[in-house]
């Protein structure tokens, strides 16, 4: 690759992140028009690297160059800020319409004063057409599906004619088929504009088939860059695990017991352009794992909300141990033996400012053994934490450690420990390993499956076909607001599930 073709060139880059080196003496060259993936679990410095390329942080050492952004230090960072387009992980909801968003930064002016609405509309139409968004021009951003919102942000970024596209975990809230669609659109946009695109992700699958290369970031180890033409996806996953000898779960099919939860005809209107639930029926039995796989915007979020008690279905019933709980609050569900494990980054399952011992007793402070006569029993709370840390083999953590000081994987281990320690009748699980290292993912899955073998029913909601395949005794795909059942067999493949999720099988 000659210098002429190089879109991004990083030489000897050293970056600090949270008291350690995110990257040290890091070199990278990405050709113009190519997509490059930066793969790593949460807190490995992916975002720091991206922010440094975008010029939001000044590098400690080294050089970062792409067309239109030369120079070093503060000057170089300012040039990179001007010349790059950075798409953050979270897109705040906005009441702007798509057409307005697409012309927000460089709206054509009338006599240099007011906005020339006619020209602005034409411009917006052109920009939307490049990514197939034309029918959505008059839709407010907050009503769009996550994929559409990402595409709109991409179109808006391209309108600024940047020298490089930088996307921080753009597939985090997308299903696998949506992620593919987005990355394909990104690659063709990068090719057309002849600029490099750098994408951070926690999923190896995002590198295939669109990315030219992958850089793997580990905490405390040197990054490695590989080419996707030379390394297959399976080899990439193996390489990412670093040869730590992870054994796969589950331990085998389980024998189902009594029926615990039965949902019949659940109907709920989606928000904005989210797919509504159009009559969902399922039942969950003791000692089995029912996995439901789907894209978040295809009804998975709605179903999860109904199970959590955050939203009430407009039609249908949900019986748990014979009682209709469709309209019961979450507290009542927990009291009757249903508990929840949400994705590691979910905000509703831990309090970062509290200590580990308080988080391990969260939700159980109303009475014995953790409280008596309206007062907390600190000895019991601490004792519970000591026992949980020992039983669940959680290293380097003390009961009085601040929860927010632990890494994401450790926090999720503790949350899983808290939920299984009381032997619930039913565990509702939603993507428990999302964004964790493979080691942490396996720990979490293994702990949950072991709990299933003790008699607990697991209802496992996920957007990851691989995860569903690995844990399911029975498997359903949520597509167009309804469940499609797929027999769990040896010959079942990830592609079959993705096809069902995208509706291609129909």
């Amino acid at each position, binding site marked *: 690759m000659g210098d002429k073709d190089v879109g991004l060139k990083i030489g000897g880059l050293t970056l600090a992140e949270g008291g350690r080196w995110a990257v040290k003496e890091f070199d990278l060259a990405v050709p113009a028009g190519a997509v490059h993936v930066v793969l790593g679990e949460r807190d490995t410095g992916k975002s720091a690297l991206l922010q440094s390329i975008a010029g939001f942080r000044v590098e400690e050492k080294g050089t970062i160059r792409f067309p239109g952004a030369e120079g070093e230090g503060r000057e170089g960072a300012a040039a990179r800020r001007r010349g790059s387009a950075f798409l953050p992980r979270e897109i*705040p909801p906005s009441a702007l319409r798509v057409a307005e968003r697409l012309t927000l930064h460089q709206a054509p002016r009338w006599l240099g004063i007011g906005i020339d609405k006619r020209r602005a509309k034409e411009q917006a139409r052109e920009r939307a057409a490049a990514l197939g968004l034309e029918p959505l021009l008059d839709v407010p951003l907050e009503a769009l599906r996550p994929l559409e919102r990402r595409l709109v942000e991409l179109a808006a970024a391209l309108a600024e004619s940047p020298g490089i596209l930088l996307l921080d975990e753009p597939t985090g809230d997308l299903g696998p088929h949506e992620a593919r669609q987005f990355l394909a659109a990104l690659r063709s946009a990068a090719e057309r504009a002849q600029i490099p695109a750098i994408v951070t992700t926690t999923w190896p699958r995002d590198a295939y088939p669109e990315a030219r290369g992958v850089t793997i970031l580990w905490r405390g180890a040197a990054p490695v860059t590989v080419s996707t033409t030379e390394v297959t996806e399976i080899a990439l996953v193996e390489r990412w695990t670093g040869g730590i000898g992870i054994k796969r779960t589950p331990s085998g099919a389980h024998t189902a017991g009594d029926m615990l939860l039965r949902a019949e005809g659940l109907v709920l209107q989606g928000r904005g352009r989210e797919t509504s639930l159009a009559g969902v029926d399922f039942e969950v039995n003791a000692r089995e794992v029912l996995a439901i796989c789907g894209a978040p915007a295809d009804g998975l979020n709605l179903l999860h909300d109904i199970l*959590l008690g*955050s939203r009430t279905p407009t039609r249908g019933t949900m019986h748990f141990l014979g009682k209709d709980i469709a309209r019961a609050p*979450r*507290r009542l569900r*927990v009291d009757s033996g249903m508990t*929840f494990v949400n994705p590691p980054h979910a*905000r*509703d*399952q*831990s*309090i*970062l*400012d*509290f*200590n580990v011992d*308080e988080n391990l007793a*969260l*939700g159980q*402070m*109303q009475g014995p053994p953790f*409280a008596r006569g*309206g*007062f*907390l029993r*600190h000895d019991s709370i601490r004792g519970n934490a000591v026992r949980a840390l020992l039983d669940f083999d959680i290293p380097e953590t003390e009961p009085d450690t*601040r929860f*927010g000081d632990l890494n994401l994987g450790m926090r999720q281990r503790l949350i899983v420990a808290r939920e299984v320690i009381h032997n619930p009748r039913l565990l509702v699980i939603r993507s428990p390993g999302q964004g964790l290292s493979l080691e942490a993912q396996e720990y979490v899955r293994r702990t949950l499956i072991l709990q299933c073998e003790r008699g607990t029913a697991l209802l496992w909601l996920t957007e990851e076909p691989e995860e569903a395949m690995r844990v399911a005794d029975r498997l359903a795909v949520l597509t167009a607001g309804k469940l499609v059942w797929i027999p769990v067999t040896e010959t079942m493949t990830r592609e079959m599930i993705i096809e069902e999720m995208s509706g291609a099988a129909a």
Partner: protein
Amino acid sequence: MILPGRCRGGKLQLLGNALVVLALFAGTQALALGSVDLNPAAWAAPWTGDVVLVSAGLLFLGLAFLFPLHGGLLNLGIHAQFLVGYSVGASIVRGGIVDPAAQAWLALAAGVLAGGGTGLVMAWLKQKFAIHEVLSGLLLSAAFMPLGRALAVDRVTPPALTIELGAFATPLRFAPGLSLPPSFVLTWGILLLSAALVIGLLFSHALRNAVAGFAVRATGANPLAAVATGVEVERVQLALLGLGGACAGLTGALQVWTQPAVMLERWPFPLGFAGMAVAFLGLGSVRGALVAALVLAAWLNTPGAAAVLQHPGWGAAITLVLLSPALWVLPRLQPEQGAPRSIWRTRHREAI
């Protein structure tokens, strides 16, 4: 005690606040040296019921801001609650039906109820119409300002009720009050101060050791998680704003007790907001606020402070110094999770 989940002040912040207090003491004395109005003799007789009432007032105002703060609420309606308490108390004094001592207690009780009611209204507006407490608090403060002026006991605009800086004249004009004898003010002032101390320490103890305190901390640190674990977040916030309002209302009503020598009216900005200065200087912890209130009361009684606060420019400078701790405490006030997404709505309401 620095409470987890709220103002996580460290040694640097503590040092910063200590420097602010030092600057206040040293600065006002140094400035006053050049002032013709300086009366060093005033230092000889400050330790009376006046000082006690000033301390009690500042403590209650500090608690009025701190109670809701631990539930994740910024009680900027503290001045509104103070004004309502004052207005109700002043109305009772103007009525003059019963003897002064009975009026004094009646005014306090009515102030507590009126201030608490204002806090509850703010909570109701937040829960029913998703109006953020900062917005409703400021609007209510502005709305109650004319009421306070109209009901002022001596029909002179009390400086503490205005928003103009430095309009402090000598002799002090504010609230001739009930002409209560000094022995009454001293005795019952000590009781009120003790009550404020006990309430503050009990609250601090409950936060750490009681189930209800845990619910308050959970609500303040992460309302989403609090809801998920069965805490009735809206009820907790309602109670905290009501309690905070009651404390501010009590301080407002306490103004009708005061004699002309009371230093509270020399406060350089709307008096209700003094609670925020107390909370920020105390790094958001209850015990810190107790110390801050006593220190500020002592400062207000130095002869230098009395002289300097009569100067509009110096008054403005002191306001800035007093509010500077907010620079390092305020950014730590918002919960890390479930923080209000905008001034209009709170996220936990949208999620449930």
